[in-house]
């Protein structure tokens, strides 16, 4: 069923890119956040296409479940006003459009036309293998990540927490 896969890929790509544009273009932050969730879901779909179901699940959990919620919380906390219209976009945004476009397209062309030392599809290993890698070979970085999360917590405390006077 390669056709299905290709079709799905195209549809998901359209979803991802379109919602990404929406994130950038929506004036209302809440809309942007919702578009972002759409984008995340699309990416999760891509992961499934790539036979990385575990990653896809984690994507949904972490991005859609955690980060998006975090973002929405932040928007709520700061009052989700659209803000001054003049300040909506930085004036360099329009300069950045062609530059980003040209650069992006150029890189896309290079990346898409190169020949890779790639085998056929479906090399992603089983979840067991991933777990084994994660907890054996990458045990040390895994532990360090906990420190990073601890740092994030400290950050929330020292920056965002209200001090009792």
């Amino acid at each position, binding site marked *: 069923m390669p056709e299905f896969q290709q079709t799905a890929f195209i549809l998901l790509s359209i979803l991802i890119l379109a919602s990404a544009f929406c994130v950038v273009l929506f004036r209302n932050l809440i809309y942007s956040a919702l578009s972002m969730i759409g984008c995340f879901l699309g990416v999760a779909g891509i992961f499934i296409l790539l036979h990385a179901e575990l990653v896809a699940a984690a994507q949904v959990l972490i991005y859609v479940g955690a980060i998006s919620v975090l973002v929405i919380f932040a928007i709520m906390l700061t009052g989700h006003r659209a803000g001054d219209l003049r300040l909506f976009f930085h004036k360099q945004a329009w300069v950045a459009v062609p530059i980003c476009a040209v650069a992006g397209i150029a890189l896309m062309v290079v990346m898409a036309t190169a020949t*890779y030392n790639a085998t056929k599809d479906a090399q992603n290993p089983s979840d067991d293998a991933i777990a084994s890698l994660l907890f054996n*070979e*990458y045990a040390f970085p895994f532990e*360090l990540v906990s*420190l990073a999360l601890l*740092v994030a917590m*400290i*950050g929330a405390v020292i920056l965002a927490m209200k001090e009792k006077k």
Partner: protein
Amino acid sequence: MSHDIIAIMPELMLIATAVVILLVDPLLPVDGRRGLSWLGIFACITAALSTWFSRGEEFTAFSHGIALDKYSVFFKILLLVVAALAMLISEKHLFLKKRLLGDYYALILFATIGMMVMAEAIDLITFFVGLELMALSSYLLAGFFRYQERSIEAGMKYFLTGAFASNFILMGMALLYGLSGSTNYQEIGDAVRLGPIPEGPLVIAIMFILAGFAFKISAAPFHNWAPDVYQGSPTPAAAFLSVGPKVAAFAAILKFFTIMLGSQSDTWVPLMIALSIATMIVGATMALVQKDLKRMLGFSSIGHVGYLLLAVVATGDSGRTLGMAAVLFYLAAYTFMNMGAFGVLVHLANHNARFNDSLDDLAGLGKRHPWAAGVMTLFMLSLTGVPPTAGFLAKFYLFSAVVEAGFAWLAVIGALFSLVSAFFYLRVIVFMYMRDSEQTEEKTDGKSWDLSLGLGIAAAGVLLLGILPAPVLNAAQDAVVKLLGN
């Protein structure tokens, strides 16, 4: 496994100490927190000692995730020195600014762990985690004085630019992984050297990585954040941020561009040269027009990055150890002189409530604070590169490497900007000794033995590296020889 534990012993010590600090901190009254810095310093010392005693062994741990070799030992000890110095100069300042929290020390320790991991990693994933650990801690350190607009601004700028740059590095690493099929430096290096690897994507990967690192070390045109962040951050944190991340980033750059990309030097050497020249221009000329000392030091550190990049260029085809050793030694010298210079600013801020880091505040310092002015002079001379200071030998060694690699013309350009930079370093001395102060101080009780000790250590380091550099120099040379051997 015990093997692995031994390898990360220093990190574990720091983690344990940081956790202890975090736990103990809320239980202590503000006055009682003053000992926390010593806890951290003690951890750094023990960690450094344990690193030192493991210097004879050379092995990789965690399935080739990190390498414990002389190179790692050199950088880990250096980074621990940075952390210890940073904590020494911080305590009083935080106390006076009413932000004496254990979190600060924990963040420094976490950042240090991240840097150490960056230096010792030989795996992309391990490196990336180290990088992010350092980066996240750094953002928070920059924004630590959250009631000061400048500090928040610094944190915000650091965070945005840093996150953006991290994405570039990460993209580059993703491509490298994808092209080579491995995350291990050595394996990637072999794959890149032996091929077959599509050239276009590889170049793009190099560009992403180069851009990301250029940000981390604040090379022009990725430098804009640096002066603002140093100016806005709490001064002791600025000291730490202006040195630590750079040291770690250079440790990683050397590994990246020799082990992994050494065979691609044709691609990155010209770009590195361009970056280096641009960085020297920006650093030297913009430091010239600064009135704020922290900004000035920020641009000056950009200038030093320009010189360091020259040495990286000199590593060119990966057979040249001299350039790498020069980077190592330069970083060691830079650590002492830059930490020292910021430390003097901390000292002044502690003693004078009106001190706002401007050059004018230095007027007449030679009379008011003779010792502070004296060591500041020493640091400025060292930054200028005048013997018998560490800065001189570092620059000498660096020029040696550059000339030896056949880039004498680059050395001449470096010399030109050294000359320009001499101007603004001298101006500090001019203000301290040759101008009389017009404004009076608002004296505060800033006496701090910690800080004096820190400045003393920095000054001693600057002199010692300038007069008896042989041990550090040899260590640097040994470190890089082995790195290229494996």
